[in-house]
């Protein structure tokens, strides 16, 4: 079949119905007294899309992430999420129980410090199994097998399943956090500096693993990072923040290769070449 034939066939078949956004953020603002955490942030996120929020420390990116993920109540603005039944729900108008269930099942959160995302004094297998139990799994054997399967997907040996994460290296702990989050097959995962504080070789392994999982599972991800290389590797789109405001947004390679805003140009030109 020639290219023009392919185009005609596609046109004849009709353009597929547009997919609706998974998450819609509208005018999100959080102020701390007189200080701005983040101001008037709006964007849509579609299923399977990876969005990076970049900026220096204090730019408001973590405040924004916490407001979107319902961990911090915004001063104003709305966050709408498309539930599995297709209905759009305002996450700040949901009942507390419903929101908690959403966070435990359909959402994941990977923290920079694994101590915030793991329970250090229970086994690796229990860390993964806990989220399964939260969604109603009760069969010990099944939970353990699923946990082992997920540990191997994040390249943790089966014989570490009964060890506590405090005995794990930094890279392993991050991989365990990822397994713990993905085991319930969420559709949206938030990540706050997931590779922060890791050695570069460990970082590369984690990024490669994340890239693979994101594309295999069709996950939508919002990742906060100050590392532009991480943004380039993982994300489709990015938002650049400064002093709580979005100063540039667009396709990741467009923003990095043709930065427009003075601050983005400063960030890009500050990367050390190796």
């Amino acid at each position, binding site marked *: 079949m*020639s*290219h*023009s*034939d*392919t*185009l*005609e066939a*596609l*046109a*004849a078949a009709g*353009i597929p119905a547009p997919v609706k956004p998974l998450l819609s953020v509208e005018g999100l603002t959080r102020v701390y007294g007189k200080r701005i955490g983040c101001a008037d942030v709006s964007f849509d996120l*579609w299923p399977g*899309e990876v969005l990076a929020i970049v900026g220096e420390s204090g730019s408001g990116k973590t405040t924004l992430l916490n407001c979107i993920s319902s961990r911090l109540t915004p001063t104003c603005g709305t966050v709408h999420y498309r539930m599995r039944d297709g209905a759009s729900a305002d996450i700040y108008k949901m009942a507390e129980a419903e929101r908690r269930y959403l966070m435990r099942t359909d959402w994941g959160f990977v923290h920079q410090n694994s101590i915030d995302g793991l329970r250090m004094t229970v086994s690796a297998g229990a860390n993964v199994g806990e989220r399964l139990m939260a969604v109603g799994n009760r069969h010990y054997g099944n939970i353990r097998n699923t946990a082992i399967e997920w540990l191997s997907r994040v390249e943790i040996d089966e014989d570490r399943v009964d060890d506590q994460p405090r005995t794990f290296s930094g890279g392993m702990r991050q991989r365990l956090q990822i397994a713990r989050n993905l085991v319930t097959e969420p559709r949206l995962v938030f990540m706050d500096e997931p590779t922060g504080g890791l050695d570069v070789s460990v970082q*590369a*392994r984690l*990024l*490669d693993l994340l*890239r693979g999982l994101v*594309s295999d599972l069709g996950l939508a991800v919002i990742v906060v990072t100050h590392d532009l290389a991480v943004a380039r*590797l993982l994300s*489709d*789109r990015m938002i650049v923040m400064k002093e709580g405001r979005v100063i540039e947004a*667009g*396709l990741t*390679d*467009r923003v990095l*290769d*043709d930065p*427009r*805003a*003075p601050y983005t*140009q*400063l960030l890009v*030109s500050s990367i050390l070449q190796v």
Partner: protein
Amino acid sequence: MNTLLVASEVKKTFIMHMRGGVELPVVANVSFSLKASSCAVLGGPSGVGKSSILKMLYGNYGTDSGQILVQHHGRHVDVASASPRMVLEIRRDTIGYVSQFLRAVPRVSALDVAAEPLLIRGVAQETAHERARELFAELNLPERLWSLPPATFSGGEQQRVNIARGFITDHPILLLDEPTASLDAANRAVVIDLIARKKAEGAALLGIFHDQDVRTAVADHVIDVSAFAAGKSAA
């Protein structure tokens, strides 16, 4: 003949905020079209804006003004004003690109790098890898390299991985940024042959080739980029 892409009055200026906001005009009034089953070549001295034009067509650089209309899934879409999501869809299905240098991702094998454009279109991994192997063999990339990450490959080896990645799909439009710059004569001939086959399949190609032999062999017509030199047409 079927026109697959039309650029009209495209303008691009870089504003260097780190250098006190100095304006660097790149090109203006860029107007041309690409037809199915043909290969056009961007001509003109280096620094005249050839790569910048390719990058604007691919959505990698923004534009100041003008339109870049692409026939995408049977309708016309303006790359210059399309949403990031639409640009990604156009890259997945309509516009392919062989960049000058490979951006190597740690730990990802040459085979996976080349197969990726097929995988994101939903082709089964085995089929995609098979197609990548065929292209590697044709491009004389030593088999012992196929399963290794290309970061440590030579310039010519990396370039061949990049070419395989660009030619593996049947995108109707293919942009080529000096794909033969670090290849020897035998592999240049392979690329010339690959281009001829794409043309025969109905693709519209647009390339930059510094090598005179390659240019002569592939070009149906030359677009002289010096005619779009910014400043020349500045009002």
